[in-house]
């Protein structure tokens, strides 16, 4: 279930994780974990835990280079949720339009 949308929704439900994710999106490049923890007023251990949750949701990727671990953002899973919502928003708008036309014609 690691790639499930539940994980994504849970991952972005936490404000600190949203900030971390946002910082990585804005950086548009891989950032070392040390630098990320310096930006936030929480322990490195706390940041690592949040990063792990984001990684499980597929929202960030982590790779090791030398002694440092680097993170970068992967917003693709969010796009999937957004597209599902967009598709059904449109779908139900059309359906309700059709229902309205049908009822008007019947009356």
């Amino acid at each position, binding site marked *: 279930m690691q*790639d499930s949308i539940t994980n994504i929704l849970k991952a972005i*439900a936490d404000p600190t994780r949203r900030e971390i994710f946002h910082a990585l999106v804005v950086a548009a490049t891989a950032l070392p974990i040390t630098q990320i923890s310096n930006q936030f007023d929480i322990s490195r251990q706390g940041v690592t835990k949040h990063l792990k949750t984001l990684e499980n949701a597929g929202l960030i990727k982590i790779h090791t280079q030398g002694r440092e671990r680097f993170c970068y953002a992967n917003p693709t899973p969010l796009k999937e949720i957004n*597209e599902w919502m967009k598709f059904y928003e449109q779908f139900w708008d059309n359906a*309700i339009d059709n*229902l309205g036309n049908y*009822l008007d014609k019947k*009356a």
Partner: protein
Amino acid sequence: MNDVITKEHIFKHSIDTVWNAITNAKEISTWFLEADFKAEKGYQYVFNSSGENCSPIKGEVKQANPYTLIYTWIVTETPIETTVKWALEKTEEGTKLILEHSGISNYHGETAVTMFNSFNGGWDNCISGLSSYLKQIVHAG
């Protein structure tokens, strides 16, 4: 981020007219999708589409008491179940519809991608096809 899509709409028609339109198979087939449907709890319904390469929708009726209709919504060839709820309320102008489609969190990322690809190819067109078909009927009438 929310797990539910909600739509509200007021129809200038009586609550029973709207209720029949969303529960009667013949009426559903006219404005929505070709339906094998009964407004009975436990009924396994199928919504087909007349277009090519369109995945049917199937599911089970969970509740069908005037004026609340709830059924599960499964796009064939995907194993994921979402839920559609139609609730009607009498208003001064006519009838208020509150439609809720929930369960997006049941989707796996990968399945979602497959689904969008198949929608882009055909299913989306099935719906717009239906829409223009109905407009033709309305204009002809």
